[in-house]
């Protein structure tokens, strides 16, 4: 432990990314007063850290001091007439949604992990349950307060410092530490009626997704076993006109999960789970789901994530343009049938936005593919082949999800990456903001 005369303490802590692919001993500052935001010595590399729930190591590593913002988790102002919430960046998305829903409002874009911080949602510009309808997190942010090292607080919005404001979304902390944000809300529905539409393959899934584009909740689950690849179900959620009584309320998924001692997602485990899910889900039907349960389905996935064991997993998420998706789905099916990787889950979503900056967006279908034990050579070979296949079909990677993406792959997938990088670094000319993510992709 080191302590400075400037009133802050640093803890030496072992930090691990959510997917367990990167761990490092990191120095962590935990400011609990505004004054301490500016306490780190000048020139020292640092990176803001929300709840530390990101799949990749976006908030630690590469010699940086992690500035843990978890104490900045307060609600600062709520306008129940106009639907605006001013909240500190360390507040967790599920806590914010719980407060809002009690007031009759909600934030329609929320990532699946309930522990994600508001600052993290902005820094990665996350998407929610139907990005085709609701867009990215940035669509719902009116203004942001940043803390700039050596300069202090700065409010950015579409009207003030608009360039820095825009770059803060999917800016991974490079434009300044996010301290608070004003969020725009919509009226909360009582619940969702979620309809299940079984699909035989990914091509059929894409059709169902496009036809249902304008609903508040829309995503698919797919079997990824060779011979079954793409079979699954699309969940189409519509607003219900009456509240639903919540059954067993699950605790929020923690930011880090203790892994099981053995890897559950071997071929037998994957086969059994897919058969069971196929039997349960892959038939027409509908159910009523409470809003919070629909927003944070990962709360029911604690054992699933623990089951990856110490080897962990990788979530590769690629967004392929609509015009190329059929060919991509066919090539991917062939790749899976040929290389027979272990894949525990494939999820599909529809996107209809613009791919600006480093944000994960575009007009197309995104597939999130969970690959256990990615360090194994056969699994890694599949991930590399998947990236090549996706890039060949115009795919765009989600940088906040996949920790095996290397700098050259990212540059091939995002042609204007260098220009975006230079723009982001213009806000951090000293290159102080560092993390394992920035090191790995040379951001």
């Amino acid at each position, binding site marked *: 432990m080191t302590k400075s005369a400037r009133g802050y303490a640093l803890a030496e802590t072992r930090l691990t990314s959510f997917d367990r692919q990167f761990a490092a001993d990191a120095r962590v500052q935990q400011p*609990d*007063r505004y004054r*301490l935001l500016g306490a780190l010595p000048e020139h020292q590399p640092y990176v803001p850290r929300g709840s530390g729930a990101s799949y990749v190591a976006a908030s630690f590593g590469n010699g940086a001091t992690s500035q843990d913002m978890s104490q900045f988790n*307060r*609600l*600062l*102002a709520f306008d129940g007439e106009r639907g605006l919430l001013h909240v500190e960046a360390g507040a967790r998305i599920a806590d914010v949604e719980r407060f809002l829903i009690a007031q009759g409002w909600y934030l329609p874009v929320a990532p699946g992990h309930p522990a994600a911080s508001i600052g993290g949602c902005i820094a990665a510009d996350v998407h929610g349950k139907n990005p085709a309808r609701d867009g990215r997190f940035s669509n719902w942010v009116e203004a942001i307060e940043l803390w700039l090292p050596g300069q202090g607080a700065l409010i950015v919005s579409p009207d003030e410092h608009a360039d820095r404001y825009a770059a803060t979304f999917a800016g991974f902390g490079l434009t300044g530490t996010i301290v608070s944000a004003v969020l725009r809300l919509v009226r909360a529905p009582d619940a969702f009626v979620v309809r299940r539409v079984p699909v035989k393959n990914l091509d059929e899934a894409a059709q169902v997704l496009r036809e249902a584009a304008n609903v508040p909740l829309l995503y698919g689950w797919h079997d990824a076993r060779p011979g079954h690849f793409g079979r699954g179900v699309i969940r189409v959620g519509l607003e219900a006109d009456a509240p639903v009584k919540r059954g067993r309320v699950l605790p929020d998924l923690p930011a880090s999960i203790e892994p099981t001692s053995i890897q559950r997602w071997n071929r037998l485990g994957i086969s059994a789970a897919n058969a069971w899910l196929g039997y349960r889900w892959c038939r027409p039907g509908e159910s009523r789901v409470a809003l919070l349960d629909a927003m944070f389905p990962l709360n029911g996935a604690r054992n699933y994530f623990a089951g990856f064991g110490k080897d962990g997993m990788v979530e590769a998420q690629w967004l392929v343009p609509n015009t190329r998706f059929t060919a991509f789905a066919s090539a991917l099916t062939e790749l899976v049938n040929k290389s027979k990787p272990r894949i525990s889950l494939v999820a599909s979503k529809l996107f209809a936005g613009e791919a600006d900056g480093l944000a994960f967006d575009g007009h197309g279908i995104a597939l999130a593919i969970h690959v256990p034990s990615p360090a194994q050579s056969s699994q890694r070979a599949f991930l590399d082949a998947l990236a090549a296949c996706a890039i060949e079909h115009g795919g765009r990677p989600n940088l906040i999800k996949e920790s095996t993406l290397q700098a050259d792959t990212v540059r091939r997938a995002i042609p204007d990456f260098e220009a975006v990088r230079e723009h982001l670094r213009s806000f951090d000319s000293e290159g102080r903001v560092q993390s394992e993510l920035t090191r790995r992709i040379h951001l």
Partner: protein
Amino acid sequence: MTAIIIGASSGLGRALAVELASRKQPLLLVASERRDVEATCADLRLRHGIDARALGMDLAGEADPSARVLAALEGMPPATSLLLPVGVSRRDDDFSLDAGAIGQLLAVNLHAPLAIVHGLLPALLESKGTVVLFGSVAAQRGRGRNVAYAAAKRGLTSLAESLRQRYRTRELRVQLWQLGFLRTNLTHGMKLPLPALAPEDAARRVVDRLGKGSFERYLPSWWWPIIFLIKRLPWFVYRRMKD
């Protein structure tokens, strides 16, 4: 029935504010920087629907801090609890401080609590309220570090005794908590010889006991036998202990 928390910006003070707000207690939160307590007040108003006010005040620079506290209380329900989890320590508090730095430590850790208790005493006697003081296990016997801090905290023990000697419990409850390690910024990153208590757990225990008599207790309670033994160690043994 307003509770006043001096030193409410972080750690135990903020946790006490959250705990009291969850029990619908109106609050006046005092800290050196107004923005910190203003943010907490806003949060508590929204989440718990209580009346919460913020007062920023440099305790080391105020000759009579109680005057501003009393002014800030205007229009609020009568003050019934005064909690003083205020404190500041320095790693170089080992006989190497100059007089100015020693004065600041004494001002925040002893003078301000004493002066605020003095100033609010009439209001607290009228409401038959509670004064809650916070000492430290680090101040139970003098050591070669935390010198001024421990001296000030020992002063609070004396203040608690004086109040209890002067007023009967039915007139004024006086509660003194001798705190062990808490998981706050003060201990962030430290390798502690004994477990640290989460501020939220400490706050729950303190608030549970509010209004329940006058006492001196250790928090966590298992510190009591440890301190009992330390206090009875022969001097020639104790002076060889470095931590």
